[in-house]
């Protein structure tokens, strides 16, 4: 009896101790925003160039200011004064901007970190000036079509540049007179992020900005940001938490190791994050699609056509999301549609969610899946590297594509190292294209001109001037070993001319600042790619972000994907 009582008391004591220990040692992510990343894919931040790592582009908003910053409120996008204040535009389309005086580049501060204690003191003051703007504009101009900012700025100005500053620190841009420049449009054009004039033109990573957060050293060596003394951020820390792959992201969130998950595996709803008391989510338009790009040096056009038509992306998608099974992965889109899987099927290099398909500029053709497979080699070898993000999705796709029920035993997909891909040792390569824009600025360089190296993001674009001084594509851009499709425009094959034409179209598409031109090029590219059969455009995955209810949901206004962190300074923790 005594033993029994002792046992009961002991049990109660254990529970009480456990509860006490939980409250004492539970993870506390207050005053910080913790975002996961793949540990070996450290985001390289360049505010003027797209990056294969979506997080890198999003961090642009954390560190850098433009003359005007894109932000959002409950009603949508807003533009806030950044390093400039719009004074107005006159009848001659002269836009006057008064530059902020006294804005400090964050290298003006000395930061010491002691555990969670961050001490910021003034160092050598480096103030923002018009020269920084001038430097930035020149960089953008140099980047040309590689930079979306170039398209943005060049459509407003015939000559990229400004006059000033005057004594009042006002600079004046001469905008084109072909439209009414609303305040919104002016601020959009002038929302390019500004780098300090002493920056390198082509650095791998840019860290000096003027925004609300600045990078601070971290004992773990992981990226960490702290609010600047003059910044408006309400949450002082933004920390990136490294993980091996994305397979554990949802668990990490549920374990309070992170409190923000900008992309869930498969873009699917997570059952373990289903408690609305603890989490909320925000869906957005898709930014990632999977495609199989064919090695043009190994598969001729007919074979590529056969493989393209062998892979029934609908069946793949159904398996991918386990549609109709108990393990079905549920999805939701930003319009509130649930499990609308087939809306994500792609039949063109332009994903279905892009402007070009959605507005029927491009009319993708559904493949004929009953093709003669006799022209194919015994096995079509597809390479896939799972080490640079999307491990979960890659693994699933490898299994699916290897299933003879799906690909009739003609395809062998193998998870390979990055070197295999770099060397081109594949008949085709399975690639996840991330961070694509669904607007006019869909990035075709990322698909066709990217160095086949998943570890580093490089666009192999070379241009030259034609006789009239007009920039044109240099066919040496695609050498046969510097792109996923192994296209060699200098080779002499029966396809070369078509491939050159495609490359020209792509350059035209990417470099033009005229919407009509983009539409026309999009049509041509889609049509020609259909003839050349360079890829099987499988499907996109939804974009779904989870947040801990540590945050006040109303303070987080997300519009679009690239700007997920545009309003980060406004995020607030929920009052307890």
């Amino acid at each position, binding site marked *: 009896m005594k033993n029994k009582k002792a046992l009961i008391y002991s049990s109660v004591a254990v529970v009480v101790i456990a509860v006490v220990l939980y409250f004492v040692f539970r993870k506390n992510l207050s005053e910080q925003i913790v975002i996961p990343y793949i540990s070996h894919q450290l985001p390289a931040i360049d505010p003027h160039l797209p990056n294969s790592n979506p997080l890198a582009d999003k961090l642009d908003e954390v560190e850098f200011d433009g003359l005007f910053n*894109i932000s*959002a*409120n*409950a*009603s*949508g*996008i*807003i*533009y806030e004064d950044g390093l400039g204040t719009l004074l107005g535009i006159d009848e001659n389309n002269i836009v006057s901007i008064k530059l902020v005086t006294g804005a400090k580049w964050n290298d003006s501060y000395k930061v010491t970190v002691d555990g969670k204690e961050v001490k910021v003191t003034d160092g050598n003051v480096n103030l923002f000036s018009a020269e920084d703007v001038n430097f930035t504009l020149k960089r953008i101009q140099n980047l040309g079509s590689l930079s*979306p*900012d170039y*398209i*943005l700025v060049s*459509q*407003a100005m015939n000559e990229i540049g400004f006059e000033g500053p005057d004594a009042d620190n006002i600079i004046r841009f001469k905008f084109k007179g*072909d*439209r*009414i420049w*609303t*305040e*919104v*449009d002016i601020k*959009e*054009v002038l*929302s390019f992020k500004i780098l300090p004039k002493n920056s390198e033109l082509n650095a791998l990573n840019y860290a000096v900005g003027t925004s609300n957060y600045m990078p601070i050293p971290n004992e773990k060596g992981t990226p960490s940001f702290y609010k600047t003394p003059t910044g408006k951020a309400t949450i002082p820390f933004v920390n990136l938490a490294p993980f091996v792959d994305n397979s554990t992201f949802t668990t990490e969130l549920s374990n309070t190791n992170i409190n923000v998950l900008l992309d869930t595996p498969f873009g699917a709803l997570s059952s373990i994050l289903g408690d609305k008391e603890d989490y909320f989510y*925000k*869906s*957005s*338009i898709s930014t990632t699609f999977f495609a199989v790009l064919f090695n043009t040096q190994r598969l001729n056009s007919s074979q590529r056509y056969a493989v393209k038509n062998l892979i029934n992306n609908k069946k793949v998608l159904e398996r991918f999301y386990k549609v109709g099974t108990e393990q079905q992965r549920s999805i939701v889109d*930003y*319009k509130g549609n649930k499990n609308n899987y087939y809306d994500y099927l792609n039949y063109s290099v332009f994903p279905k*969610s*892009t*402007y070009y398909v*959605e*507005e029927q*500029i491009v009319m993708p053709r559904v493949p004929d899946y009953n093709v003669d497979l006799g022209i194919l080699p015994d096995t079509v070898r597809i390479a896939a590297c799972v080490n640079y993000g999307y491990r979960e999705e890659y693994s699933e796709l490898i299994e699916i594509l290897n299933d003879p029920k799906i690909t009739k035993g003609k395809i062998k997909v193998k998870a390979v190292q990055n070197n295999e891909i770099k060397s081109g040792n594949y008949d085709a390569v399975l690639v996840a294209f991330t961070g694509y*824009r*669904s*607007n*006019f*600025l869909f990035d075709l360089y990322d698909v066709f001109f990217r160095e086949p190296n998943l570890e580093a993001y490089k666009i192999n674009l070379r241009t030259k001037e034609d006789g009239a001084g007009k920039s044109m594509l240099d066919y040496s851009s695609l050498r046969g070993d510097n792109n996923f499709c192994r296209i060699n425009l200098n080779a002499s094959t029966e396809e070369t001319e078509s491939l050159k034409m495609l490359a020209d179209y792509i350059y035209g598409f990417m470099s033009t*600042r005229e*919407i*009509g031109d*983009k*539409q*026309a090029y999009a049509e041509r590219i889609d049509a020609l790619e259909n003839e050349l059969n360079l890829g099987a455009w499988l499907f996109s995955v939804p974009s779904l972000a989870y947040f801990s209810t540590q945050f006040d949901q109303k303070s987080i206004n*997300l*519009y*679009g994907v*690239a*700007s997920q962190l*545009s309003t980060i300074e406004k995020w607030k923790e929920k009052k307890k």
Partner: protein
Amino acid sequence: MKLKIMLMLLIILGVGCSTFKELEPDPELSPLEKGYVQLKDDDENFELEKDGKYFIKFPKAVEKNFYLILSTNLKGEISTYFTDFFDDGKGEIKKISDESNGIDSLLVYRIGQDKEFYYWVIDNVKKDLLLTMNYRYSPIWRFKFEVKYEEYKGILEDNKTDKKVYNSINENFNFNGLNFDKEISLLDLRKKNIEAMNKELADLEDIFPNDMANSSDAAYKNYLELKSNVRNELNFNTNFRLVLTSFRASEENGNNMGGFLAGVNDMLELVSNPNRFSQDIIEKAKNDFSSKLSKSYSYFNSLLNNKNDVKPFELPADINDIDKLYRMCSKNIPIEFSDVVNYISKFNAQAEKMSIYYDKESEMKTRFKNTPSYPDNSFYPNMLKLMREMKSIVPTDETSKISRFANYNSTNLMSTAVTNAKRNTVRLELGFQVAELLVPKLNNLKRDEQYKEMINMLNENRELDYLLNQYSGIDNLYIDQQKGVVKNNLTKYGFGKAENTLRQLFNEKVFIFPNNVERKKNAVVEQYEEELYDAVKRMSKVSVDSFVARNQMTITNVKALYQDSSFVPVYQLSFSSKGSNDLAQKRAQIQDYLDEMKYHQLPENAIKNIYNDFVRNINNKGVEKVRAIVEHGRYYKGTDKSVKTIIDECDVNTPKWITKPMDYREVYVAPVTTSKGTNEYMFKLRLQIPSDAQFPVFDINIKLPEEVAKNANKEQWYEKITINNKLIKNEGRVKITAPVSSNGFEAQISPVQMDKDGKNVLEVRFKYPGFKIFKVSVMAQKPIIKKN
């Protein structure tokens, strides 16, 4: 004494003042008949002074019919008169006439018994003279007879006819050489003279005293003797004249049977009064007359052959008198004469009756003529009585039984006439019996104006043509009655009853004389059909015009306005005598006007008026006004572009056209809900901007009212934005820029894709805690390429 003297003088003076002096004869005047008596003044004659005025009072007569006879030779010297009243010449004087008949020495006055005295007045005396005068009271007859006795005897003597010829007439007397006409004229002249005298004598008898018959008065005896002589002469004159006229007819007509027969009456009188004439004369007459009559058959036969009517034979003498004469003059009467007399006698008897019949028939016709319409209740009873009289007078046809003349035309005519008369009377009697019963009913119905029942009743008795004729006006009355019903109903707007009445009248075929009224009936139907149409059209127009005028600013319950009965005809016509096409045309004409008012005038006026009122102050019931405009607009079928533009501007469901780039246009925004609290608002934009681009895209910039957008930073200002019903969300590829104070509360949606050939409708919905109209300003232009 003196007083007595004065009184005497006054009396004397008073007497002396009279104008006329009374002469008082002495001895006194006596009214007895005793011949002439001298008028004396104590055996002296009265002295009359020149220029004197006198009078004498004569006592009244002792009997009636008396004369006062004054005999004097002074008639030339004095001026007198006789009167039954005299007061010194004063007052009205009735003078009794002097009947002296030109006898210079006499003054003859009727003197009566009514007054005590009668006055002979001398009102002027030409010179001084003595009145020498006799007076006499005498019965008037005596005075007159005595005065003319000799004259009478002379007259009688002068006019006596010589009897020599008369007395010489016998069987062998030959009238050759005798001028019948002259002799007869002389007889007539003599007779005339004697009868004139005889009349005067007869007149005297009237004033004979009552006891005259027994009188031994000499004058009276003379009178009787003269009178007897006169009578004898007149009888002879008459007889002789009859002899002369009878034989003149026989002697002077030779073969002229008609002329001979014209004297039958005299002849018959002659032979029928043998006592008045000598036997010789009678015998000669019979011989001569029978001789003539024996030749009369051919005359009669000729008459019969030429007879072509049923009137009585017009003979110079009555056939029976002829027959009688013949039989009195001869005992040997030929059978053919007897037959013809029998025939003519019967024919004439029948003809007389037929004549009466025809007279009554004429009377009947006259009565019908005098009562051409609507007889009173006594008409047919009287007619029936007349008819029965006619029936009773219709003779039995005896002439056809006389074989000698059975086939004569006259016989046939008579037979036919009699037969027809009998048939007619039977028919009419029966008809009148029915009519006798019908007329009171008809008259009652007529009094009650139940003309249709009358027509039906009369139609059931169509054989009574005379009755139908008398009531032929009922057709018109019925038509007029129906016209009145229609007219009355039109006056009271009883269009349904009016039309039904017209329809019934148009379809009415039962009339007394349909052919006679068909034209009128159709004219009435046509006229009032048009009036009905005009009235319905007019009233519908008045109603709808008034309604439209009243509701040109109506903003509440607008839908009900268009369901109002004012937009349907006050009556839906369902009949036209001209057929369905005409009916449809009329209905269409009315409905066209109503539709014009419903689908053009009312909405157009209301829309313009309400809109003008609305734009003056959009905050004054602005929502109600734009909703009213839209509701009015649902019914507008006009082509006025300004009206359609207003409707479109006010209709939140109508996308507002954006057709030019870079051009701000204002758009009214109205709530689509109706709440006292928060309402949902909506506006739609239709982008139809010309573009060379194959796939044109635009930015849409919307300048919002501050009160709508001022909280946009805290909560999403809009509920939903769609393009062609596709949801636009910021999370997608389209960027929606928030309206904030720094951008003048201008929102931007970019890019908005346009279907170049299709509709591109951008719809924006938002909520606002109020119920009012907002104005937003919208501009579209080519977008810029945006990074995010």
